[in-house]
């Protein structure tokens, strides 16, 4: 206890020996919803390669299928066509060994304390109590919540809750962390702080992160690469590299390079609206 907040996940040993960072490959993935009157194409021919350790942000207006795509990577939804593989093996159902998921707000169980929430994935696999607790405490320390383990979610702020969610996603040390609009419900200031926190955690753990958002600023600020999607049907319209230096700073937000990237994304989105 009482360690510094920057401590990496070094003492969290993986349950299986898997690489710390994963490679994701999405190959011509499509999704069609059948309704009684017509077939709705939610995703059309999406292909994407994410290299290990990269921070990739998927951005687009609502209805562009960005969350659907993420849920496919998580094995929570099956595509109609195409394949999704992580570290060479297809994802057919949720696989907590390979993927940790961080959801939008309010995904913590309110009847469990913060540390019990973080322990939840481990409890499902019957990991012994003491080991569970130790790993949960390491994960909470990593996200800067040392000492908050005994609190229930309703006793935590929105930002703290999402820190707990991130800790839960990381507790099994998966090579890939998928994040579905995790900061969407937070106020602007908290959102900025959480972005910096996430980048710090990412740097400390070296995970591959795929992050979905509808905020252009958030996308450019966080990402190595931004994938832009448009709706009806959901498809990829751009895939751009973000050449900004790391660590990212608040000053970059007003710089020319940042503005150009954001404008380029905005033009795509405006066109599809």
């Amino acid at each position, binding site marked *: 206890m009482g360690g510094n907040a920057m401590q990496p996940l070094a003492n969290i040993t993986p349950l299986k020996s898997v690489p710390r960072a994963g490679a994701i490959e999405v190959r011509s993935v499509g999704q069609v919803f059948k309704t009684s009157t017509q077939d709705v194409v939610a995703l059309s021919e999406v292909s994407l390669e994410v290299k290990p350790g990269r921070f990739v942000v998927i951005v687009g207006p609502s209805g562009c299928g960005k969350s659907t795509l993420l849920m496919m990577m*998580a*094995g*929570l939804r099956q595509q109609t066509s195409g394949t999704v593989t992580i570290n060479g093996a297809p994802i057919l159902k*949720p*696989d*907590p060994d390979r*993927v940790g*998921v961080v*959801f*939008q707000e*309010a*995904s913590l*169980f*309110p*009847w*469990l304390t913060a540390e019990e929430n973080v322990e*939840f*994935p481990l*409890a*499902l*696999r019957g990991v012994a109590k003491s080991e569970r607790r130790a790993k949960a405490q390491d994960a909470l320390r990593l996200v800067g919540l040392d000492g908050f383990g005994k609190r*229930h979610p*309703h006793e935590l702020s929105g930002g703290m809750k999402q820190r707990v969610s991130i800790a839960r996603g990381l507790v099994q040390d998966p090579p890939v962390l998928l994040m579905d609009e995790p900061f969407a419900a937070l106020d602007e200031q908290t959102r900025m702080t959480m972005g910096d926190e996430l980048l710090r955690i990412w740097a400390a753990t070296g995970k591959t992160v795929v992050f979905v958002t509808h905020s252009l600023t958030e996308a450019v600020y966080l990402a190595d690469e931004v994938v832009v999607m448009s709706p009806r049907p959901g498809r990829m319209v751009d895939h751009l590299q973000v050449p900004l230096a790391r660590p990212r700073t608040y000053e970059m937000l007003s710089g020319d390079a940042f503005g150009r990237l954001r404008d380029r994304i905005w033009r795509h989105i405006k066109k599809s609206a």
Partner: protein
Amino acid sequence: MALGIKLARVAIIITIFALWEALSRSGIVNPRLLPAASDTLAMLGQLLQRASVRNDLAVTASEVLTAFALAVPFGALVGFLIAENRYFAEVVKPLLFFAFSIPKSIFLPMFILVFGVGFAQKVGFGFFSTIFIVIMSTTTAVEQVKVEYLTVARSYGATSAQTALRVYLPSMLPVLLEALRISMIFNLTGVILAEMYASRDGIGHQIASWGENFQMKQLLAGVVMIATIAIAFNEGIRWVETRCSHWRT
């Protein structure tokens, strides 16, 4: 809670008993119809000493608890299965509302014909009085479990049994406790009504016969006794409910 509110409540209860005492003592209400509160409470003390009354209480308690122990798990299971299957839920839910709206007491003569007068008749009628509210509450409880929680469980590889025990059950707990509390009211009403209607023992039977014999002191003492037991049970569950109210949506 503010102390003032609690005091006000106690004051109201004391006032009711004081008014009761005054009306009877002053003769404004015929004391033969309304014996004084103090006499009634003294009679309650005496009754509780009597072996026959204790036996009646034990009989009623066993009937109530048996009916409850049968109706709650059975009703919860049926409610869960209904809510889990959307098609089945659509078909059955209105029918449940129909069944729920019928006064259960009109079926009491049938229970006597089928089960005879005795333990099975009371338990059967208690069960029948309780089951619909348990099914309906459980269905509601299942439906209000957040999809997000289920998705989280799925993404971390939870089995169906783990999802049921670790997500559904705790998530439903606040609503289930409320259901438990309300179904106990229905259950108690059912059993006591069955006892008053046709029985050889049980506290409901005792209360009915005190009434028929114009033993007002005993009758009112019985009323106070049953009321106290019911309130105590209700408050006990309510206390647990408040402890998990923070995850109620």
